[in-house]
């Protein structure tokens, strides 16, 4: 039913409601800028703006305008492009839309409360609802909320189920993989990572470290503030890091994987036709090739560890930098002319201790390796830092 409504709204499949040369050039611009090397930095800029201006946009009017504007582009695009509406209305992609709006609206309420609370904190007033004895009885206040939520959620689930049949494709055929073969949507961030990393990183180490990092988080975060209420000002580092991981490296990459990756896992803009015949030549180059062939104009050494030495050293240095740089000020205390530089470091280690810090730094180093490798791929077509096929170990 919803399917056919959407079909109606967007014209017959294959022909958009509106088309004109102006719309076509708009589509070209969007398709171009959606390529990961442009859009991911753009999203990151938007993300930073969101954090910097959280008090401004979280007010009802700007937030409402953003919601309306985004919805207009997001759903309105179906009227100008049939490839786009095909992707958006695919039954298994409907959850992505729900997730996007869910994350957006929840972020809004969180930052709206954070803005209110932060203002109260600045003015030295108590945070709203901070009276511990301000209690209500569970019956009726909470039980009724739960009942209403239960009814609404059941209705929504039933409506969704009546309106949208669960898809079923052709029977399993072990000899004929579809192109593209995609993992379930909630793992597509990891599958997108396969573009940049080998499966042992994208499929094992990265998810493993997401889980270990999440479990370790409450023990690493020693900041006693912001316990039990929304705030940004009192814990900017924790919120920035965590949300960068969740929004940019998880949610945005899922959108890429579902909406913008077509046959052969090639990239397609939102208004592009998924042409299975397009072949993108693989021109990526290993760091060791850059080093020996281009820089030294020599042959690759036969010993794999010598060959990959530069990559091993640089990758090690990357992790080591995260583990050690914050300690350096402790060693060069009292620089003449500048004075004490160790104040922050002392505070940090006084609060955290060595073990907490090392666990945090290691997770940050690996997390930061994801955007690092993406950027290097886009700028220098870098394939691997370390290329050791002898041990199935490529990084």
């Amino acid at each position, binding site marked *: 039913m919803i399917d056919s409504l959407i079909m109606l709204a967007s014209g017959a499949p294959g022909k958009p409601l509106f088309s004109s040369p102006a719309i076509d050039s708009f589509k070209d611009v969007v398709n171009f800028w959606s390529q990961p090397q442009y859009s991911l930095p753009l999203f990151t800029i938007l993300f930073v703006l969101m954090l910097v201006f959280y008090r401004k946009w979280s007010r009802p009017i700007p937030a409402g305008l953003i919601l309306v504007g985004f919805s207009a582009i997001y759903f309105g695009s179906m009227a100008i492009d049939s490839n786009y509406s095909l992707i958006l209305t695919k039954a298994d992609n409907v*959850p992505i839309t729900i997730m996007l709006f869910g994350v957006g609206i929840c972020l809004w309420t969180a930052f709206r409360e954070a803005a209110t609370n932060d203002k109260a904190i600045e003015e030295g007033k108590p945070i709203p609802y901070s009276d511990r004895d301000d209690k209500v009885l569970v019956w009726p206040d909470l039980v009724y909320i739960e009942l209403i939520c239960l009814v609404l959620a059941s209705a929504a689930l039933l409506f969704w189920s009546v309106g949208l049949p669960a898809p079923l494709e052709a029977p399993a055929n072990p000899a004929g993989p579809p192109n593209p073969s995609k993992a379930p949507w909630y793992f597509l961030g990891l599958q997108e990572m396969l573009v940049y990393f080998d499966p042992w990183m994208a499929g094992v180490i990265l998810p493993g470290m997401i889980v270990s990092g999440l479990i370790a988080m409450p023990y690493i975060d020693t900041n006693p503030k912001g316990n039990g209420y*929304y705030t940004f000002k009192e814990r900017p580092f924790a919120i920035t890091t965590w949300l960068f991981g969740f929004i940019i490296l998880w949610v945005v990459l899922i959108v890429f994987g579902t909406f913008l990756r077509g046959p052969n896992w090639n990239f397609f803009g939102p208004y592009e036709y998924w042409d299975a015949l397009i072949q993108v030549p693989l021109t990526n180059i290993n760091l060791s090739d850059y080093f020996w062939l281009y820089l030294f104009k020599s042959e690759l050494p036969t010993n794999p560890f010598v060959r990959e030495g530069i990559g091993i050293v640089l990758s090690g240095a990357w992790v080591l930098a995260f583990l050690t740089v914050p300690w350096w000020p402790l060693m060069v205390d009292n620089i003449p002319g500048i004075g004490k530089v160790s104040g922050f470091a002392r505070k940090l280690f006084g609060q955290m201790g060595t073990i907490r810090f090392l666990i945090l730094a290691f997770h940050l180093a690996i997390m930061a390796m994801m955007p690092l490798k993406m950027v290097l791929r886009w700028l220098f077509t870098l394939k691997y830092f370390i290329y050791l096929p002898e041990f*199935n170990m490529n990084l």
Partner: protein
Amino acid sequence: MIQAIIAYITSTQIWNSVFRHGVPRDRRTRVMAIMSNVFLHLHPVAIRKSGIRLSFTWCMGGLTFFLFLAEAISGVLLMFYYRPVPEYAYSDIVGLRAHVTLGLLREIHRWGAHAMIISIWLHMMRVFLSGSYKPPREFNWGVGVILLVLTMLLSFTGYLLPWDQLAIWAITVGSNMGKATPFLGMQGPLSDLPQLPGGVALVTVRSDAAYLLLAGTSVGENALMRFYVLHCIALPVVTAILIAIHFWRIRKDGGISGPM
């Protein structure tokens, strides 16, 4: 007349054996209503105003729990109609639509699963953004992370059961990652290190991590059976136990967090 009937019913021994208190209209009976009901007594009798606001919890934990229950019920009903062998799996799914009255079961189960993934992520985001993982709730956050993994595994194992093209190839993509596990997967780094004395390789195509998951070298009938058992028995039972611990700990950690 109606009054008299109600008065009679509520005075019978049967009624009074079930409901130990009057209609929850005053403070005493309202407290009794929560305390004398096994499900409601998951709650405290009184709760801070900060915690019941929709703008604080977004009701996402509760919604996740609701969806878990909806999945359990629709899942049990689906088990009546489904046989986890390649000969029947696909046609049973087709038959579900054709032959079962009000054939919404599969829709409810599938969309409910997607919704649960979304609601659990949002629940985690709210707990993070409101700093509710901080002491004394560190452990319950950890329980939550395990629940998150279990929920995604539940969804992943269920993805295979319709036995269509989408199913086996999505699971193939996913389980191929298992082949790349360091030390334990055939194509993973350093997989030739685990050896018996005398140089007998321990990790082979027929003994690596992916083989453990699939009970075969590719997604076939053994994998279907394995995923079915995991999906319908092992994972739900563990998840239910952990949810019980999760709720218990919310109470023991002092109820929903709030500003001091």
